[in-house]
């Protein structure tokens, strides 16, 4: 169910601009790893290299290696489409399919994987919505459009959609940045529950959030605007927030910059 991610020597480009440089790290299965760092240091870019979404942007290019257990995601003959079915993603702004009902949103990924029988689908949709702590709020209006939900509910709907296909890894790019504090708490609780089943990587701007939800924290930084982002250090969250090895991490965490 959950797999280990092993990144080595990874750089990503937009055209000729190198956005991140030579990143290596390991992400343990069934854990939450948080990415923190100042804006523009390449957190989103790095996250998107982990499910091969980076290359869909114009000029997007990747060098280096990403292993998912013993599968090389950038190996020859690897289909990015199948990578994305194994590594799910939740975006900064909730993006349910507006033309689909709540039910169809959750079933969307399953339908891509082939024909599921109605009964199985019903079951998986219910299980996924329960898994996203949304079932009780929407069970009476599964056939209503997903765009009618509140922002926090929409984001949980997107999480349900992502976990419905049983990915190995769940990537989240600032999933709470567009939400109010209560919805944010709901998502944070949810992340705590989901980590028993998935490998979770979350980008966050909010250091309290990183401290609350993650087991490991990676700090990214960039030397100056226009320079590529680099991984400064990755360690147990407790250590990063109490006693980081690198001075820059401490400066960032104590609010001295960023």
């Amino acid at each position, binding site marked *: 169910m959950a797999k280990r991610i092993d990144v080595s020597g990874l750089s990503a480009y937009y055209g000729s601009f190198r956005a991140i440089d030579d990143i290596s790290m390991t992400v343990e299965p069934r854990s939450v790893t948080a990415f923190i760092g100042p804006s523009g240091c390449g957190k989103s870019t790095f996250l998107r290299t982990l499910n091969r979404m980076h290359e869909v942007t114009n000029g997007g290019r990747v060098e280096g290696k990403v292993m998912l257990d013993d599968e090389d995601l950038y190996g020859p003959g690897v289909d990015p489409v199948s990578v994305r079915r194994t590594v799910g993603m939740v975006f900064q702004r909730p993006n349910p*399919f507006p033309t689909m009902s709540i039910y169809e949103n959750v079933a969307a990924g399953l339908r891509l*994987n082939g024909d599921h029988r109605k009964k199985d689908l019903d079951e998986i949709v219910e299980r996924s919505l329960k898994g996203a702590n949304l079932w009780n709020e929407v069970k009476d209006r599964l056939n209503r459009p997903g765009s009618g939900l509140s922002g926090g509910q929409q984001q949980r709907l997107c999480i349900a959609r992502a976990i419905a296909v049983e990915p190995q890894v769940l990537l989240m790019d600032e999933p709470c940045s567009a939400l109010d504090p209560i919805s944010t708490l709901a998502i944070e609780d949810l992340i705590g529950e989901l980590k028993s089943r998935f490998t979770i990587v979350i980008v966050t701007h909010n250091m309290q959030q990183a401290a609350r939800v993650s087991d490991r924290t990676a700090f990214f930084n960039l030397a100056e605007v226009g320079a590529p982002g680099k991984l400064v250090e990755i360690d147990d969250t407790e250590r990063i927030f109490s006693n980081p090895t690198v001075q820059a991490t401490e400066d960032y965490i104590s609010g001295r910059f960023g």
Partner: protein
Amino acid sequence: MATETPPATAASAKGATRKGDRIFLGLSRGSGITLLAIMAAIAVFLTWRAALAIGADEANFLTSFEWDANADPPRFGIAVLAFGTVVSSVLAMVLAVPVAVGIALFISHYAPRKLAAPLGYVIDLLAAVPSIVYGLWGALFLVPHLTGLYTWMDTYLGWTGLFTYHGGAARSLFTVGILLAIMILPIVTNVSREVFRQSPKMQEEAALALGATRWEVIRMSVLPFGRSGVISASMLGLGRALGETMAVATVLSPSFLIKASLLEPGGGTFAQNIAAGFKEAGSTGRDALIASGLVLFVITLLVNGAARLIIARRKEYSGANA
């Protein structure tokens, strides 16, 4: 700086308000009223003439196949024209819309930028070709080259009764439909392309991240988003096809008959019939043509109303959170 600007403009605007605003107000109000008055006058005039003609009509205006509007007593009906207009336009839409949507998707989502831009430009150009040029091309090129297709259709689809063909020039409603399809293709393509291009990136990425292929992304997010836009584009095309005059008049060999086979010459459309008959028509004849023109107007209104209904029914799912 920025905070000082508004009072300054407000003050200078105040000085100019009196005269400038009043002149502008008077001008715009005056031209608005004039325009309304002219339109009302035209409507009254046309309706009155049409009513005169229909009153004098000895045949049933809606169901009769005859058109002897210059005879005494006049006998005419719009059945053949309504049939020809609707059939050729609907045929044009059925042929053009799938192709247009395909081209639009290719330009917006498949073609590399270097190819997409010139392709879009060429299609823009095609939309600007005058319809008489299409008509001439239709008569000189399309008509002689369609006999092969017609013979083939007669062999394999003749059993339906709709596509029997007994030789002769291909100056039928079907040819008109094909020509109209080609004529409305650019406008339908252009509008659809603009709609697809605005499809929200967020939803496309959502589909991609679920493991959708390019076509699945289009099916899940681009097409549903573009649906009402494509409907509008099709209606725009249909409107053009319904009212197209010169191209139809150039290609069709008209007659006041409704034939089961679309491949047989004959039939007619409102616009083509008006263009063909107006010069030689007497006073009642002209009024009869005006009456038929009003019917075309009503049909166009109905088509637009139907399109609005279809679009409104899907509004709830239209992407409010994009």
